[in-house]
């Protein structure tokens, strides 16, 4: 099996301060990688570098494209990269309103990516939108409602539907369950887990919630001050952490 994403020595500096430094890893098809660390540890910077929102200062990011094999996304033209991010990639923001068009109906939100890749049949676009709404457990009679009329959890599910409608292969998630009630979180986790398996998605999940990665991620990367301090099998890193910082992180979780 070949990696879907091969990251080599990614560094991003903000002036003299380090955003993230020398990050390398491979992500295989169907694999879920969790990135944990406290605020300011560089996990979001890394995610944004990977997703093409930020340009790293050093390193390369190879992605296995459908048409021409492994390509360095940093060498791609912007139009190619944006095309990737509309088709093969998805980005789930922490705040649904960053990832949704709040003035456009749920159906239009889901349909946008389809129209962006050239679908021009209203009936089919709408049908697919309704199908995806039902897959994320939003009733089909809400298809014409705007996301402003949705609860936080529904907005987040709508954002996921909007992202997955074009059948991407790689999903970036930035604190996907942040700011949601725990009961809503559980539902979302269940949904994400099902979709990851069903669609064979690879995912990179950035979160500070260790419970989330335990349930979703196969592998874990722990970041501190811009550096990756520990990597490994998720349950191994959480149950037998080797690095001082990871031990601190794991032991700091409040028990319910």
């Amino acid at each position, binding site marked *: 099996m070949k990696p879907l994403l091969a990251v080599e020595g990614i560094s991003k500096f903000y002036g003299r301060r380090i955003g993230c430094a020398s990050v390398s890893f491979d992500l295989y098809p169907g694999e879920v990688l969790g990135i944990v660390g406290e605020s300011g540890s560089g996990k979001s910077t890394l995610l944004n570098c990977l997703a093409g929102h930020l340009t790293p200062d050093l390193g390369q990011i190879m992605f296995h494209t459908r048409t021409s094999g492994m390509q360095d996304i940093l060498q791609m033209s912007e139009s190619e990269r944006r095309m990737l991010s509309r088709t093969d990639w998805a980005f789930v923001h922490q705040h649904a309103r960053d990832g949704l068009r709040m003035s456009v109906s749920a159906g239009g939100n889901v349909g946008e990516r389809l129209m962006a890749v050239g679908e021009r049949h209203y009936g089919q676009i709408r049908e697919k939108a309704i199908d995806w709404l039902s897959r994320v457990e939003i009733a089909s009679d809400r298809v014409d409602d705007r996301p402003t009329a949705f609860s936080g959890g529904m907005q987040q599910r709508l954002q996921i539907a909007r992202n997955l409608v074009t059948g991407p292969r790689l999903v970036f998630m930035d604190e996907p369950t942040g700011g949601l009630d725990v009961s809503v979180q559980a539902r979302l986790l*269940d949904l994400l*887990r099902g979709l990851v398996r069903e669609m064979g998605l690879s995912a990179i999940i950035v979160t500070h919630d260790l419970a989330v990665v335990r349930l979703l991620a*196969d592998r874990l990367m722990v970041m501190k001050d811009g550096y990756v301090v520990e*990597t490994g*099998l998720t349950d*191994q890193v959480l*149950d037998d952490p080797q690095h001082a910082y990871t031990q601190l992180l794991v*032991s700091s979780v409040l028990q319910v």
Partner: protein
Amino acid sequence: MIHITNLSKHFILHNQGSTVIPVMNKANLFVAPGECVGLTGASGAGKSTLMRMIYGNYLCQEGSIRIDGTEIVGANPRDIIELRRHKLGYVSQFLRVVPRVPTTSVVADPLLSIGVAPDVANEKAKELLTLLNISERLWSLSPTTFSGGEQQRVNIARGFIHDYPALLLDEPTASLDAKNRAIVLSLIERAKANGTAIIGIFHDEHARDQVCDRTIDVTQFAPKVN
């Protein structure tokens, strides 16, 4: 099937003055297909630790663990995931699942992860749940709210749904009544007959005597305290 040689482990508590706690010293263990080995020793002797090391949940500093030829010590996480999916089952004392997922799906999950069709996997899950006397009205509910004994049986169903060549059982009969214990023991017997190599922790002597071909006292692997 399970081949452990010279296995050693210690914990280093970086945040508590870098205290080094040795927990295992040169453990050796060999389990053949169809054999069931019981681990014994007082609480804290390292039974669960050894199981977790075999499962790849704990890292080891020295030695070797080979399961059906695959080396666990120093293995790539990806290889361990692959091994767990296909060859190495683990029934722990605790049930850890995504909340809200129905019991049937929890049990069918190991089969789904290796690509078995959902209807086949669900059918097999229901068979096992029936066998283990989990009332049908509970199947569509999440096991997070179940009683201890029910959760344990769900865990067992999950562990036995796939015919793993190697199986680790951490107190599988602990909170079960006599009837259900007998059923679990028969499941273990059946797995042995199928050639599964089993390592188990059984506090219940009666159960241990019934299924274990031999026992190993892990106290012998305990590091000498200076």
